């Protein structure tokens, strides 16, 4: 997973005033630093002229323009050579709607989101509560659980490809010990995607656990102690104090789960390569196998545009609805 997607700035979300405007009314002006008061000197202009263009140019050339061009190329049937000339309107999007493999990719992305939210996050939360307590070796457990997150998805995918291998891997040894026929999970078109889900949980729960650990650290212990003194049970303390106070972190963790799920690609290639029978693609691996490797630039761009709209709609909608108060 690339680190390029992150939630909208929490600090600037919601109805709060911009920081310059806050606090100026009732405090003596001398105590408040009001940035815009400084007139731009020649030195200031020179700074802007030297410091800003590198970022703006790089961002425009490699991020903004390609995204706009994706929207443009999506209207063409183009193999990438010469200029795009065969304008076909919305046909690329039409192909997508009727494409069973793409539909399956969307379902798979949805499955990742569902499993992330219903299995991975509760697991991460439970483990965070366990390692946040003073269990012997808590620091070691935190470290071990976080370890898969720093490994590359490609390596994780290959490691698990071996684990699931019916001939050589651990799966093979288990079926052998039970006296069963070798079972090839990765070649089973009904269940192969569950292998992908297992790897995702294995790789990412530690990251979410760390977010929760960080959130737990921010909770005022005196609240929990007071509740305990008043006779609240452990479950009541968790349900009425810890969980609500973790709210912002949970919302953040859900955000990362969904965005990560939408752009999942690296694990698919070494684990299943999209197979068997194209049942384990995600949107991005669909884009790769059907757009990039076949140099169908127009079609692949259209897939990118669909992905873009899903990501942006989610990011804006989620921020509007769930992260307003954070």
């Amino acid at each position, binding site marked *: 997973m*690339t*680190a*390029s*997607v992150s939630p909208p700035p929490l600090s600037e979300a919601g109805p709060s005033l911009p920081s310059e405007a806050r606090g100026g009314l009732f405090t003596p002006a001398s105590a408040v630093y009001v940035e815009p008061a400084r007139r731009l000197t020649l030195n*200031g202009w020179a700074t802007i002229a030297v410091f800003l263009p590198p970022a703006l140019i790089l961002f425009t050339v490699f991020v903004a323009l390609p995204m706009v061009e994706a929207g443009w*190329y999506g209207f063409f049937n183009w193999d990438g050579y010469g200029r795009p000339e065969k304008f076909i309107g919305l046909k690329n999007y039409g192909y997508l709607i009727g494409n069973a493999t793409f539909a399956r990719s969307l379902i798979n992305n949805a499955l990742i989101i569902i499993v992330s939210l219903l299995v991975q996050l509760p697991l991460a939360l439970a483990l965070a509560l366990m390692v946040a307590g003073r269990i012997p070796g808590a620091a070691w457990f935190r470290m071990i659980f976080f370890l898969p997150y720093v*490994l590359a998805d490609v390596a994780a995918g290959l490691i698990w490809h071996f684990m699931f291998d019916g001939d050589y891997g651990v799966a093979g040894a288990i079926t052998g010990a039970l006296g069963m026929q070798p079972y090839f999970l990765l070649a089973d078109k009904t269940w192969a995607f569950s292998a992908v889900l297992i790897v995702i949980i*294995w790789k990412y729960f530690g990251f979410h656990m760390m977010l929760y650990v960080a959130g737990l650290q921010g909770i005022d*212990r005196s609240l929990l102690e007071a509740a305990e003194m008043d006779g609240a049970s452990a479950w009541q303390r968790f349900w009425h104090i810890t969980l609500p106070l973790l709210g912002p972190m949970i919302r953040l963790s859900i955000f990362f789960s969904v965005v990560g799920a939408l752009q999942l690609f690296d694990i698919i290639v070494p684990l299943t390569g999209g197979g068997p029978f194209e049942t384990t693609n995600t949107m991005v691996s669909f884009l790769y196998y059907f757009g990039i490797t076949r140099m169908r*630039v127009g079609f692949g761009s259209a897939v990118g545009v669909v992905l873009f709209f899903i990501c942006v709609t989610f990011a804006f909608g989620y921020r509007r609805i769930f992260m307003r108060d954070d």
Partner: protein
Amino acid sequence: MTDATADSFEVLGRRPRGPASFLIFAALLVVAGAVLYPVLATALNGVKDLSEIRTNPLGLPRVWMWSNYWGILTGYRYWQVLGNSLFIALFTVFLTLAVASMAAFTFAHLRFFGDKFLLNYLQLGLLFPVATAILPLFIKIRDLGLLDSYWGVILPQVAFSIAMAVLLLRTAFRQLPSELLDSAMMDGCGYFRYFFYITLPLSGPILSTVGIIAFVGSWNGYLLPLVVFNSESRYPWTLGLMAFQGQYMTAWQLVLAFITLTILPAILMFLLAQRWIVAGLTAGAVKS
């Protein structure tokens, strides 16, 4: 946040005692085993003979085939892919820090026409992943003549980390005491000198956070190099690993040894700088 690994807090109230404590410990051990087992199995099966992997994939090797590892370590392929990855990652980190800190500095301290607009424009990068625009990006890299070159990977990686980096750095730069800037300006210190002699030296923690995020992202990157590189001599380790696996397919002992050796640098770095890496990756996520 930086204390994410410190063992000094209790959230569940009292320290769990007796059977509860034992159950929690046992549960943690089981999960830790499930997390570590695949990695250990990979490393151990890399020291076996292929036929032994088939008959005994779970246990320790009966015959320790160190030659699997030795063969990879003495060939130059392994060092080449690691070297490529390191080169790409270091340049990505350096350029990301340079470009983003300059932009963040301008947005933090200078007001000019359109500054808010430009900042919001850069923040658009937070909304979508590289994959959405990967095909037009490929065309762009090709048209710029950067295909199959290190810069074809480095520059887009930098461009895609700018949004998050500017966000984190600008917030941190604004939190530096403003009296510093006032008095420096009074003494005739220009913005350039202020940036190099005051802002950067005082921003070590946030620069390292941004650097770690950029490094890990680049080191583990797969899609972008996959699209850009043709020559195996330029492959970073992620591509090199897949190429190696493609070549040796069912010679699992070699593939597993190669996986183990290529993830080794990341594991070692993680063990050595664990506190920094965990804090950097999670703090980056939380603050943005």
